């Protein structure tokens, strides 16, 4: 009898517990993401306590912040299902992002790889299928040369272990704190992978540092963090991503990039992103430029369902310079909302922003930019040029170039154009022998020429080719 009673009691307790669990999860707005999950990630990576603390603090901030919905004309984010995120980030669950077999990739992505002529092994690695590939060796060789100079280029997770003091000082503290925006907070909680680059004083890295080579390192892709520290007088060109489409099973990419450009240092950050067309691409990228430093952002935004990306530079030191070059392309069903932000917080600072966007088949591009010149940042100058080209009447292009000028002794230049591909222009080229498609391709290539001519040649070629492929409309 007594044992029967005990059974009853136990059942009772379990039932009550289960009920309680249900109730508590129903109260949470983001029921998918819990402290437990974050602890698991951190533990799996064997992270120091402070990193776990940062992740947990970021998680709390993420939960407190509302989804951004009040920006004028912003992309619709209602389909970002954060409840679904857990299976893709928890190390104890096997089904992380990506697919296991090449054949499981959507056909349009397989197609693009084929058309770009990317070798089989790289295709698999880049698309998230399969393991490491031969380029790892190339990367290894480069790394040895850099190490002699004291340059560090490694996986962000490894940097937490091996360069703990530097990472602790710079990681999401002064440049992109998690409180910056909801997705920065999310990123701070669940970040994984990415690159750490450290260039010592007066050192020039004479070859672009490419994340391309190690795209398939663990935790690749979706929530990677990049931290670049260029000490005084140093110089480095970092290239992220490549034109090959990146397939992600979970539909959110939320990367974080922090760049520290110390006195008289020079950093160029180039990226071409081509996310699969189910992806929401919401990134936070920011640089801080000290006295006499130069920061350059080169961004090509292709692919994705919606992108919100506004690389920012804080011109903190006297005489610091920023250059932004952005190209965006939106096809059917895509909403590409990109731009640039520059804060002139010191005298004699200079910024130039050049943006070109192309919208086709009902796609939408928006240039959203902010130039802020603080009171006292005298003799600063800024030049903003944003041009948008539309293929047809179904497509939309907007420009929202905000200016906040609090100082009177400044030089501000701004130019914006929005236009449609002219029928007369197309006919002119057709009358010379080009067919309708080639005529339009030529007009688009000419439209982005001022930008592509500033890119490294192989990059320009890749970008042109990708835009051509997109225009053929054969990629779905």
């Amino acid at each position: 009898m007594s044992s029967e009673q005990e059974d009853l009691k136990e059942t009772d307790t379990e039932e009550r517990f289960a009920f309680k669990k249900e109730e508590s999860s129903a109260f949470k707005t983001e029921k998918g993401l819990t402290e437990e999950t974050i602890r698991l990630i951190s533990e799996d990576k064997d992270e120091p306590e402070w990193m776990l603390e940062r992740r947990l603090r970021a998680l709390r901030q993420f939960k407190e912040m509302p989804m951004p919905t009040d920006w004028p004309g912003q992309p619709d984010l209602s389909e970002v299902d954060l409840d679904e995120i857990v299976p893709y980030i928890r190390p104890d669950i096997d089904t992380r992002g990506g697919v296991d077999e090449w054949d499981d990739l959507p056909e349009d992505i397989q197609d693009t790889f084929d058309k770009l002529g990317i070798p089989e092994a790289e295709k698999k690695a880049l698309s998230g299928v399969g393991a490491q590939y031969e380029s790892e060796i190339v990367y290894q060789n480069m790394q040895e040369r850099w190490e002699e100079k004291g340059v560090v280029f490694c996986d962000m997770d490894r940097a937490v272990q091996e360069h703990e003091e530097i990472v602790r000082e710079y990681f999401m503290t002064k440049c992109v704190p998690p409180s910056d925006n909801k997705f920065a907070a999310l990123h701070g909680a669940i970040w994984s992978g990415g690159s750490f680059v450290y260039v010592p004083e007066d050192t020039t890295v004479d070859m672009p540092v490419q994340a391309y080579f190690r795209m398939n390192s663990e935790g690749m892709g979706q929530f990677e963090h990049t931290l670049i520290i260029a000490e005084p007088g140093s110089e480095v060109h970092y290239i992220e991503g490549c034109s090959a489409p990146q397939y992600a099973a979970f539909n959110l990419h939320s990367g974080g990039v922090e760049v520290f450009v110390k006195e008289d240092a020079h950093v160029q950050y180039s990226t071409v992103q081509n996310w699969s067309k189910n992806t929401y691409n919401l990134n936070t990228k920011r640089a801080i430029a000290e006295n006499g430093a130069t920061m350059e952002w080169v961004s090509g935004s292709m692919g994705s369902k919606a992108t919100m990306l506004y690389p920012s530079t804080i011109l903190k030191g006297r005489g610091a310079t920023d250059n932004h070059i952005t190209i965006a392309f939106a096809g059917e069903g895509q909403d590409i909302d990109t731009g640039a932000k520059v804060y002139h917080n010191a005298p004699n600072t200079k910024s130039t922003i050049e943006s070109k966007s192309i919208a086709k088949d009902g796609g939408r591009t928006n240039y959203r930019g902010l130039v802020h010149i603080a009171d006292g940042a005298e003799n600063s100058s800024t030049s903003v040029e944003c041009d948008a080209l539309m293929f047809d009447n179904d497509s939309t292009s907007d420009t929202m170039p905000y200016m906040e000028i609090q100082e009177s002794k400044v030089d501000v230049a701004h130019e914006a154009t929005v236009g449609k591909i002219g029928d007369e222009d197309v006919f002119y080229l057709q009358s010379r022998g080009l067919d309708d498609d080639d005529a339009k391709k030529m007009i688009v290539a000419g439209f982005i020429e001022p930008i592509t001519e500033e890119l490294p040649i192989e990059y320009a070629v890749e970008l042109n080719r990708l835009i051509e492929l997109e225009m053929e409309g054969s990629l779905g």
Partner: protein
Amino acid sequence: MARLEIRNLHAEVADDEEETILEGVDLAVESDEIHALMGPNGSGKSTLAKVVAGHPAYRVTEGEVTLHLDGDEFDEPIPEDKRTWDLLDLEPNERAALGIYLGFQYPAEIEGVTMVNFLRTALNAKFEEREELFEDEEDEEEAEEAGYDTSPMEGPADEGEVGVAQFQEILRGKMELLDIDDRFADRYLNAGFSGGEKKQNEVLQAAVLEPEIAILDEIDSGLDIDRLRDVSTGINALRDEEGSGVLMITHYQRILDYVEPDRVHVMLDGQVVMEGGPDLAEKLEDKGYDWVREETYGTA
């Protein structure tokens, strides 16, 4: 020897059926001939040029535009059943491939595309399109049955392409002929060109693309006397060097001092109402278009 034949051509503005511009044009131009097409403003001269080239803003409601080829125009002999083309069935670029060229009154400005890149692309596109037009359909069918996209005899598409170096030679030659500055080649297509430079460029493009029939719409307007001379040299060379037929649309007698036409046509209210030799142009200069109206309708 190519011959462009326009018969009873009627056309209206595509999105406005009320507006009829061509009311039955008859006109023919052959290789090795220069024809002048004259007439008052609004008589339909420019529309005729655009309709022949395939401009989508106009709809043909009646009539024919035919191109007859002899068979020896291009590198390969043309089979007999491919010598007559109904141009109205073809896309603008297909017409260009067969040798129709339109020199625009207001050429488009294309930023970011260099002249040399544009012209080489156009020349290669023309060759490629021509190859497709003259492909033997039977071969095609056979190839398809055998599981190929195109005839296996055809070889890779790039085979006949004019390379960068080769094209630069071609372009330099043509530019010398027309006394055009070397720097032209690297400028963006018509972008920031003066009115005169644009017209010169239309003639240069014709010289490079070597058309069978070139229609030049008001190629002489807005030119100073030196440039008028250069442009005229170019037009004469088109006939004398390339053997092209030229239909030159103009308001003025002036260019005819440098380019002597074999035939002169006069348009009025959407029709060609008068034809004659070079002396007709002089008569027009003396008597004006009112005289044409009188001759056509009986009274002024």
